[in-house]
């Protein structure tokens, strides 16, 4: 806990002068038609930093992290991932997507492929890893998320928690530099949330750069270096978890926290 905080505040403090950031959003705006979803988002994430994003429904959390791997297009501002700027250039987009893993609320496993094939698919076809090696590596990641015995089953035969762990393993198989999570546990039954969170905590401990939209405040307290609160398409408040939860600065943050902590 204390070390996490220490590195967290160090990263925050040194953000301005640290070397190349892993993720950099500068003055990002986005509209859906006339609807202004993202308003002047500025965010800098250093290597190995763990960020938790929270905020009420419709505040633009998903939209923001989906802009980071260009599942959504931003219309103004700059987004730079590990030195590569996201523009209309398809080459750059694919380059960024290779280095950025994403885990979705509804898992989105490929139902026509076995668990092992799901995991080995992208390494084989994008990284050109030979099938045998791709499958060996996939098995290693499946062991890491503790379901190697399911490797030959199909996604439809697994529980939600198991599917989400496979989805994490599938992303990890590409050896990404950044992992994005969009409410990875909110479609799961309480019993399964823990097994997924455990895997995510393990991942955080291994030094992965993570951006995680979640309302699991326990998770935020244990692993986050910084917590970001969004509302109405803006970043309202940003702080290390200790300060964020014990001493929120903005009224809206206080209201939100009282709602989710007391429900």
């Amino acid at each position: 806990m204390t070390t996490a905080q220490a590195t967290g505040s160090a990263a925050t403090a040194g953000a301005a002068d640290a070397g190349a950031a892993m993720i950099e959003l500068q003055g990002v705006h986005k509209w859906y038609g006339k609807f202004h979803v993202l308003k002047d988002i500025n965010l800098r994430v250093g290597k190995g930093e763990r960020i938790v994003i929270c905020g009420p429904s419709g505040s633009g959390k998903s939209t923001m992290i989906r802009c980071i791997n260009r599942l959504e297009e931003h219309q103004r501002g700059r987004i730079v991932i590990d030195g590569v700027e996201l523009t209309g250039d398809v080459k750059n987009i694919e380059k960024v997507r290779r280095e950025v893993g994403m885990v979705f609320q509804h898992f989105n496993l490929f139902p026509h492929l076995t668990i092992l094939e799901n995991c080995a698919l992208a390494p084989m076809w994008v990284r050109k890893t030979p099938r045998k090696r791709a499958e060996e590596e996939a098995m290693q990641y499946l062991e890491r998320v503790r379901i190697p015995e399911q490797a030959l089953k199909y996604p439809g035969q697994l529980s939600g928690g198991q599917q989400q762990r496979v989805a994490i393993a599938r992303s990890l198989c590409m050896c990404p530099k950044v992992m994005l999570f969009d409410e990875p546990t909110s479609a799961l039954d309480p019993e399964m949330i823990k097994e997924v969170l455990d895997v995510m905590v393990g991942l955080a401990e291994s030094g992965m750069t993570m951006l995680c939209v979640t309302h699991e405040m326990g998770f935020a307290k244990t692993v986050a270096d910084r917590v970001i609160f969004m509302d109405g398409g803006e970043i309202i408040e940003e702080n290390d978890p200790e300060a964020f939860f014990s001493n929120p600065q903005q009224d809206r943050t206080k209201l939100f926290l009282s709602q989710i902590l007391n429900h």
Partner: protein
Amino acid sequence: MATFRPHADLPPPATSSGALGWVRQNLFDSPVNGAMTLLALYLLYLAVPPLVDWALIKADWSGSRSEDCSKAGACWVFIGVRLNQFLYGFYPVAEQWRVNLTIALLVAFVLPLFIKRFVLKQWLGAALLVVYPIVAYHLLVGGSFGLVHVETSKWGGLFLTLVIAVVGMVAALPLGILLALGRRAENMPVLKALCVAFIELWRGVPLITVLFMSSVMLPFFLPEDMSFDKLLRALIGVALFESAYMAEVVRGGLQGIPKGQYEAADALGLGYWRATVLVILPQALKLVIPGIVNTFIALFKDTSLVLIIGLFDLLGSIQAANSDTNWLGFSIEGYVFAACVYWVFCFGMSRYSQWLEAKLHTGHKR
């Protein structure tokens, strides 16, 4: 203190108690159902015995002339005498082994693909798509490798039906897939408009018109010395026509794929073509197997329309035999034979699609 004892696993209850139980449960479980059952039995009683009587019991099976027919029932002698023509058209008898060999080769190429443990499937599949058509072309048309040239105007019967159907299917599926993908390319408006125009144009015209145009009108527009084979023109017409239908079937499948699948594929960096080929199409095509097979079956039966431009497929050659003055009055036997042959092929396709669907089923959705 009570301890929880798990219940031992029991076998599932027996679902039916013998044949009689089944009959009672399924055929006579209510007055209405019972009445329906009796009505159906009565209708079967009216229809089946006379049919069996005509087609089997009172039928003539042996002989070689129309005088051998007793006229009491069906006279299958007619079919027997003309069978060669029904199968091969006017393909020279001495060269018919080439047709048989072509079909045998097709079976030899395709069968191993169904063997689970066969390891060289990709290579065999590629050979089937690349090598086989060339071999088949040279075998059937001839004029090379010491084989006599057989003009396509001599092709006919079931053989011609199969040629048109197989070429039509093999061409229509990939073309249809490309058209469907093009129609969904929102970020390429010109391509999309072209695909929409193509699909709507071909779907809006009857196949007969297409065949007429290809055989009668096209030569007007082409330069004098450019003579296109009539069969080739019909093949192109059928393939393009069916590809428009196929495109709409495939598009239905593409629409059934959840957005999350596209997003997951994109997020992994697969890119458009790899995402489409590896993730989207396998699921979309599986979803629309019934529709694809439906189109194939319709195509198979539509091939009989080439009769209109003077190609003698199975139905055409039977039609021709019907007007033989030595064999007047046996058209019913001819049509029944044609119906049976078409039915066997179409039913085969239907069963195959059901087997395929079951095989590709991978557990519950999501």
